């Protein structure tokens, strides 16, 4: 029910800042305390284990607060399982990242208020109304939960005036709407307050909100049966266990619009854990998205060409995103950045950065790095200064600040210097046409950009463009970007050489040319064997060549 990577991805949807303006702006809005405390906690989610532990602790705290509110004596522990039920559903609600984490902190604030209210003995009505209003300001519509729960508790004491709390909460919502603090009355009074602005909230998210007052009522009813020793604990536990199944189903139904594996991949990318990313990609079945991340990991490990065909490859869609236009997509930004198309990377990263609830830290880092490459130090300084205010990113930002206004340091840095040299010489638009053409422009500008060359060759290999591969080899072999030929490229070149000789009668690219362009003796021999065995096998793929480019070229459908 709790995907640790989905929780961790929340950290990438915000940037918590130790900055007065940020804190004040976040705090002085409806539900500001819930929002700010939620963001404060989520900043620690860069570690998925922390994300799970913190969330479990908060859910547990919530259940305890509820139990503390409903208990009448310390002997009321048997109703505790009933107090867990709403939080089982709330955790299911949190399985969708469009539901903000502030819903949990808002619940805690509301239950904290309920806890306090349950201990008040005098002027309860005034306190109740005051707590409703304060909770609304601090936590938003969760105040309605407080009001309903407080009213339910009091109904069992036959204190009917507590219904006024519900009216007070409704009045707060109405006021917030009329003052344009919220866009709609619905948002001012319902769980949709905690949901992404640009999408309708699935009805399932209502369930925990309805279950909470029912749990309070159930607790109260169970307390009336206290005399029956085994019935209460047994019944409450049974009800809790029975509730787990629908809660689990709800978690499945509200599963995020983003495929869960993206969160896992993004976690490894954000932490530049390329081995972890490779391992994660290997454990999932092939889809273009998975292949793109896998190849991204290979690229950063410098193994894109050497290990490309050790993995299942099904065409260039597994290498880069083919979406047209300038989208909002972290994957796209990472791939463009790796392949040296810095303008495209920045365009996507900038739009993505500004499309999240706060600022996506990884995208902000990428923007800062591209600004350093550009030499626009004032903008880089702006981004780094912002990251410096985020505790988890402070150290990284301070390290990067040494590049500010220091062209020499930038140029000597392997990543930044390479990026600076890779700006295309020829003017044009980024992400406007064929992605291969854009990589080739990068390589034209910076022939020593190994990653860009690897991406270009990998693209051609996967697209079965062996003529293109041979052209790149002809042009760049022996130069700093392509000092030696990976086996897969040797195989492609050799195949093209054979093909042009047999079909076109062209001897220009014969064995001598191949040997002079990095095709090893062993590759010649293997190719000879491959050809012989292919003929023998009567059209079937010969064994032992599944990782060869010849196998991919001849037998793999893309």
């Amino acid at each position, binding site marked *: 029910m709790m995907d640790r990577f989905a929780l961790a991805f929340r950290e990438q949807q915000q940037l918590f800042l130790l*900055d007065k*303006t940020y804190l004040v702006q976040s705090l002085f809005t409806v539900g500001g305390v819930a929002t700010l405390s939620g963001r404060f906690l989520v900043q620690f989610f860069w570690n998925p284990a922390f994300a799970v532990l913190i969330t479990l602790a908060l859910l547990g705290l919530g259940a305890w607060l509820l139990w503390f509110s409903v208990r009448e004596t310390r002997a009321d522990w048997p109703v505790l399982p009933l107090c867990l039920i709403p939080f089982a559903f709330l955790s299911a609600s949190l399985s969708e990242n469009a539901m903000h984490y502030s819903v949990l902190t808002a619940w805690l604030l509301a239950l904290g208020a309920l806890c306090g209210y349950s201990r008040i003995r005098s002027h309860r009505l005034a306190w109740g109304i005051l707590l409703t209003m304060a909770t609304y300001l601090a936590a938003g519509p969760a105040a309605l939960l407080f009001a309903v729960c407080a009213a339910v508790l009091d109904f069992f004491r036959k204190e009917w005036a507590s219904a006024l709390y519900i009216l007070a909460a409704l009045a707060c919502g109405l006021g917030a*709407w*009329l*003052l*344009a603090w*919220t*866009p*709609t009355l619905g948002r001012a009074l319902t769980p949709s307050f905690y949901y992404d*602005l*640009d999408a309708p909230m699935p009805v399932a998210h209502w369930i925990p909100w309805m279950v909470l007052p029912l749990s309070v009522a159930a607790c109260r009813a169970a307390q009336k049966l206290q005399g029956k020793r085994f019935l209460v604990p047994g019944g409450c536990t049974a009800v809790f266990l029975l509730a787990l199944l629908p809660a689990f189903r709800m978690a499945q139904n509200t599963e995020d619009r983003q495929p869960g594996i993206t969160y896992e991949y993004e976690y490894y990318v954000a932490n530049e854990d390329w081995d972890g990313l490779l391992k994660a990609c290997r454990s999932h079945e092939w889809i273009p998205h998975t292949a793109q991340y896998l190849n991204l990991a290979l690229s950063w490990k410098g193994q894109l060409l050497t290990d490309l065909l050790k993995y299942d490859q099904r065409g260039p869609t597994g290498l880069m995103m083919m979406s047209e236009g*300038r989208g*909002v997509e972290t994957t796209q930004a990472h791939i463009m950045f790796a392949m040296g*198309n810095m*303008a*495209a990377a*920045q*365009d996507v990263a*900038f*739009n*993505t*950065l*500004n*499309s*999240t*609830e706060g*600022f996506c830290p990884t995208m902000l880092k990428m923007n800062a790095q591209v600004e350093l490459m550009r030499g*626009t130090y*004032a*903008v880089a*300084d*702006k981004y780094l*200064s*912002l990251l410096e205010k985020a505790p988890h990113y402070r150290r990284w930002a301070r390290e990067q600040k040494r590049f500010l206004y220091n062209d020499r340091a930038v140029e000597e840095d392997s990543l930044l210097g390479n990026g600076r040299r890779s*700006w*295309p*010489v*020829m*003017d*044009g*638009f*980024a*992400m*406007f046409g064929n992605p291969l053409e*854009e990589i080739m*422009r990068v390589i034209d500008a910076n022939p020593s950009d190994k990653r860009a060359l690897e991406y270009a060759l990998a693209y051609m290999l996967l697209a079965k463009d062996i003529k293109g591969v041979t052209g790149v080899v002809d042009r760049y072999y022996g130069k700093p970007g392509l000092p030696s030929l990976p086996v897969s490229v040797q195989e492609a070149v050799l195949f093209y050489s054979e093909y042009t000789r047999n079909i076109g009668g062209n001897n220009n690219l014969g064995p001598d040319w191949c040997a002079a362009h990095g095709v090893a003796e062993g590759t010649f021999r293997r190719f000879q064997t491959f050809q012989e065995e292919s003929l023998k096998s009567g059209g079937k793929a010969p064994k032992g060549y599944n990782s060869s480019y010849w196998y991919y070229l001849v037998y793999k459908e893309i």
Partner: protein
Amino acid sequence: MRKLIPILLSGVLLLSSCSGNIHPSGTIGSLPPLEPDYSFVTVPRNIAPLNFSYTGSEECALQVEGHTLRGREGLFSFPLRLWKELMTRDQVEMTVLVRQEGEWKAFQPFTITVKEDIDPYISYRLIPPGYQGWQKMGIYQRDLTSYKQSAILSNDLTDGNCMNCHTTLGGDPSKSVFHVRAAHGGTILTDGSSIEKLNTRTDSTISALVYPYWHPSGDYIAFSVNKTLQSFYNHGEDRIEVYDMASDVVVYDVHGKEIAWSPLTKGKDHFETFPTFSPDGQWLYFCSARAVEMPKDFKQVRYGLYRIAFNARDMSFGDRLECLYDAPAEGYSVSFPRISPDGRFLCFTRHGYGNFSIWHKDADLWMMDLETLEKWPLEAANSPETDSFHSWSGNGRWMVFSSRRGDGLYTRPYFTYIDEEGKASKPFLLPQKNPGAYYKRLMDSYNLPAFLKGPMKMSKHRIVSEIRESSGVDVQVK
């Protein structure tokens, strides 16, 4: 006693910020490095205090007309009372002092010139400078006599959509128009206490209405209609190119709810855009370029400045175009023509090509004398970075414009004084309590800054309700 308390309090505040005189033992032969650079700027008498920072790391102080202010982490904050006193003069001299090796030394002094009042408010849009992806944007207003900013409307109330092109009738906050795009899309017209949502897409025009300009009578609004795209450069100083695949100019009748045009403002052979009425309402100015194949030839599209007669009595147009500036013949393009309230000067942005000058580093402000058609660059106001969208104050003595001179990317509003000869003074950046920290922290650009004669008081709730709930009135073609 009640009257005494505020006086005593302000006195205490003044004393706490202004310490005793410092006598420097030496001088430094240069101007101090300041952020923002307010040296030798011209400011209106009613402007909020121009706090600024000394960007060096030494202990610093500011001597100003017999008062000494200590810098706090380099920041000089003027007590309001002192600032108001300073603004009663025609010129204020300031000297920054720094303590170096235990000795106070004085930088070269500089002056701030004080001129007549400015309109008390400006409006602008705050948006990340990518214009493609955003979570939050909004139209805001700022009291120029203080630091107070408030939202006129922000998109968290309208499901995160885009809102743009807010324009008032000569700075009158009660008459305004702006567009809301995507969800709940439409054009919102406010007039006094009434709000109206318009659906401005018609079968006869290429798009919904885009860049607006009010007729001085308030009866008409000129609009462009544009098929606009934007792309990100893979190289070069400029980052984004915004370009029109096609565009026309039309006029909307506010009362009749219909649009009309002249064949001279709407045709396939030319791209017409950025309409502006003359202050007497008799002329409609706009930019026009010979149509080329877009986006292939985007660097070949260059706009000249034209005008056509407009008759407000029957919403009719003249039968010929007048070219005021054939910029393409000189290898340039012009955008955003804006005429001074007295009708004498026309300020425009000039750049190498295209029409969306805010993304062109070479964009500069130019002035044209409408009597002689003589034109000149506003040299004191321009910078090596983009200087673009501008608007005139009600008294025609001030202009606010967008400039990327701060960091090269994020536009900020600058104000320049325009003298009787149409020459600009060195501009100053919109003041803030701590401008250095504020602008560094702000991740939005100021977009379309324009003067307001007062605050917009329309209830946000009413505007939001109209946007969200009204299906809108369909605009007709005359």
